[in-house]
């Protein structure tokens, strides 16, 4: 098959249009020398794909009133069970303060106010202060719409529905030359050279049977980073949201989030017999943190073990249906549109894969080991450690996206020329992408189901060494089947089935890493819970896992966490500070 | 058949307003012509005006008054919507305007006949 590759040059190339990508574009435009070409390439439409838009609860930022950056930092470290990269966590908490002002003052976001006109802040589980800034429960729409407008109205070049499929290094492998794309609308290949590339493709643990992220997120970025030899950290850390909607295999509604606030407001979780069970697992009951509630629900599901009744139930009706309708109008309407009565009935729920803490190893300025490549947002590992606090996700992507833009704007001044790609890598990546077109068409979706079952059962909410080894075998088998499953390439324009295949390729690649890293962590921290190693292990000798591909083989090692700011057992809060500023419920 | 995205009162009101406006615009020059003739060719004009005694002509005239009424009340409705602070009762205004237009033109036609 003869493949044409269209070639294009730019100076700064940004992948993804979530909080990370859009902020990178804006900051690069501000900080790079005039005349610098900036191109934004994205798998969907600008601002309309990815998860930042789906943010409901809000944005964590310490804005005074007793709350401090130090307190936010300590919550982040405690929440991450001492695994975060402390310099990144500090940068996150410190810069969030600037970023929220930027969002309000320059970008034009409007977040909910108190009656006196100041910002309203609330507390998510795991926080010791009212810290989360929000716009109702549609915070992400406000943030992304405003960012999108800014980007669309500036001279930033757009490559929409351009799917990145390979990071192409230079011949000596020392630097990045550019990125290979499929123009999804035509099905053609396009190679874009750039001096600086920021990757913000947003991870996305969609290899689980139940998952929350948008359909375009399939771990493409991490798979590309792995193939180009970059080290990935904390890859076992998959956050589950406890209450995903369960509506059957055939509907895309399954897995979508029923918001956290429902439990906070007094929503009850009921098992198949209609009894509450969360107090058997935690004294805070339904109000415990996400990981605890997810495990509670998962345990009950296993106890019940009834294929006709898979999930548990969330029930709000005891709070008065009208009251529920008033308090959660969006959620009630969404359930009603899907055929469920949240206000007066009960809705079946399961834990659902929500966020990926693992990612590419970066420095606090978002630089990676590959010269010319920067990574920010959910694709970057380190800021959250083993667990991400609600509200720290969008703070993370917007903070580091901006940092990446600034850093590139500075670095590009010393990069005089575009770099030429290693043509053999380029050809190999094209070959990988067109592989299915030469194979007899088969059922890609069935394989996706298999993978999702395997990961849910063997590398999901609770894990064992035995299970994860079995997961590795199942993944290897699926990978082989995928290679033997083709796609009809008669018309490559907007060929979703081809992209389903490519999605599966990324997902299997990263699923393997998740299971392998999970095997390497022989303790339970945050989102990673092993029944065979239920203890968190010694905090002082905390390690994080690092996975990389060396000569084609996946290798996982452990590296010690550097306590550059605070050591376990200590705090940076002034003596006598109360443990929490949040009024008890 | 009215296409699905059009089957609601506001769109129908828009459509009536457009049709009536256009019809009026087409009729008005003839009306002016007629009035001019009243002077320059009184006989013809008188004949014409007497001609309006015929039932069909009366109905046609009634139709035009109907158009004027429809357009008039539709127009007043639009001006109210556009220039008065929005009332939240658009559909009611629309319905009332149409009903009123029918009432006026209806009574006109009945009286004329």
């Amino acid at each position, binding site marked *: 098959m003869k493949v044409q590759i269209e070639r294009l040059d730019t100076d700064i190339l940004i992948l993804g249009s979530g909080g990370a990508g859009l902020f990178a574009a804006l900051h690069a435009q501000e900080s790079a020398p005039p005349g610098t070409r900036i191109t934004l390439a994205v798998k969907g439409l600008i601002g309309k794909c990815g998860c930042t838009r789906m943010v409901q609860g809000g944005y964590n930022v310490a804005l005074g009133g007793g709350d401090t950056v130090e307190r936010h930092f300590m919550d982040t470290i405690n929440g991450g069970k001492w695994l975060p990269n402390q310099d990144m966590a500090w940068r996150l908490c410190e810069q969030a303060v600037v970023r929220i002002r930027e969002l309000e003052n320059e970008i034009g976001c409007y977040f909910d106010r108190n009656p006196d006109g100041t910002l309203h802040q609330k507390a998510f589980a795991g926080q010791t202060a009212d810290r989360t800034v929000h716009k109702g429960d549609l915070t992400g729409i406000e943030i992304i719409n405003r960012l999108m407008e800014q980007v669309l109205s500036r001279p930033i070049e757009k490559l929409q529905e351009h799917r990145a499929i390979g990071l192409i290094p230079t011949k000596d492998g020392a630097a990045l030359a550019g990125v290979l794309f499929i123009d999804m609308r035509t099905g053609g290949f396009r190679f874009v050279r750039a001096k600086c590339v920021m990757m913000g493709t947003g991870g996305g643990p969609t290899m689980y049977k139940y998952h929350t992220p948008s359909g375009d997120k399939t771990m493409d970025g991490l798979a590309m980073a792995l193939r180009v030899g970059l080290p990935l950290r904390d890859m076992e850390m998959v956050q589950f949201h406890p209450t995903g909607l369960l509506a059957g295999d055939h509907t895309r509604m399954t897995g979508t989030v029923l918001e956290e606030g429902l439990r906070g407001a007094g929503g009850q979780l009921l098992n198949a017999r209609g009894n509450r069970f969360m107090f058997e697992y935690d004294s805070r009951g339904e109000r415990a943190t996400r990981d605890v509630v997810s495990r509670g629900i998962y345990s009950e599901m296993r106890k019940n073990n009834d294929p006709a009744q898979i999930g548990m139930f969330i029930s709000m009706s005891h709070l008065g249906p009208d009251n529920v309708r008033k308090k959660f109008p969006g959620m009630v309407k969404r359930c009603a549109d899907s055929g469920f009565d949240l206000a007066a009935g009960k809705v079946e729920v399961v834990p659902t894969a929500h966020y990926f803490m693992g990612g590419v190893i970066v420095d606090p300025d978002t630089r990676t080991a590959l010269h010319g490549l920067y990574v920010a947002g959910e694709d970057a590992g380190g800021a959250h450690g083993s667990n991400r606090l609600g509200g720290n996700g969008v703070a993370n992507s917007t903070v580091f996206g901006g940092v990446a833009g600034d850093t590139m704007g500075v670095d590009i001044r010393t990069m005089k020329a575009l770099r030429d790609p290693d043509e053999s890598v380029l050809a190999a990546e094209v070959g990988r992408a067109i592989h299915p077109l030469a194979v007899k068409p088969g059922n890609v979706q069935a394989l996706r189901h298999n993978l999702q079952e395997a990961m849910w059962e063997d590398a999901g909410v609770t894990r064992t060494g035995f299970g994860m080894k079995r997961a590795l075998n199942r993944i290897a088998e699926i990978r082989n089947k995928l290679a033997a499953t083709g796609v009809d390439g008669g018309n490559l324009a907007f060929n979703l089935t081809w992209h389903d295949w490519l999605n599966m390729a990324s997902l299997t690649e990263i699923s393997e890493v998740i299971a392998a890293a999970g095997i390497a962590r022989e303790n339970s921290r945050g989102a990673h819970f092993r029944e065979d190693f239920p203890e968190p292990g010694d905090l002082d000798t905390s390690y994080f896992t690092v996975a990389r591909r060396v000569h084609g083989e996946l290798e996982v090692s452990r590296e010690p966490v550097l306590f550059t700011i605070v050591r376990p057992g200590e705090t940076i809060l002034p003596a006598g500070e109360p443990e929490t500023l949040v009024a008890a419920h | 058949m009215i296409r699905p995205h059009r089957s609601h009162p506001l769109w129908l009101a828009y459509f009536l307003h*457009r049709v009536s*406006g*256009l019809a*009026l*615009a087409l009729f*008005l*020059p003839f*009306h*002016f*012509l007629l*009035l*001019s003739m*009243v*002077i*320059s060719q*009184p006989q013809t*004009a*008188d004949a014409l*005006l007497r001609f309006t005694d015929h039932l069909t002509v009366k109905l046609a005239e009634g139709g035009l*008054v109907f158009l*004027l*009424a429809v357009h*008039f009340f539709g*127009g*007043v409705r639009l*001006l109210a919507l*556009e*220039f008065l602070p929005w009332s939240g009762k658009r559909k009611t205004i629309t319905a009332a305007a149409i009903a009123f237009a029918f009432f*006026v033109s209806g009574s*006109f036609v009945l*009286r*004329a006949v």
Partner: protein
Amino acid sequence: MLNARLYMAQRLSAMIMIPLVFGHLAVMIYAIQGGLTTAEILGRTKGSVTWFLFYGTFVAAVSVHAAIGVRVIIHETFSLKGKWLEATTWLIGALLLIMGARAVLEVTFA
């Protein structure tokens, strides 16, 4: 194809016509009920400055109003724009104004 100025012209002319059309409708109903002849109509209008102003204003307003109204319809139906659309608008306006003015003059002064 309406900008703020054309829009204002159209809406203002419409507002001006509101009392005029109301009055006209009333006159017509009265006229038809009374079975008026030409002579009778003329008897009332000839030499009357009031009637001149009444119908004169109406003619001026309706010329502006209808010209812009038809302009919009032409643009939206035939995608006509630019010079030709401007020309058409003026033509319709002028036609209505001239014919209307003639009628009013004949009815009131001639």
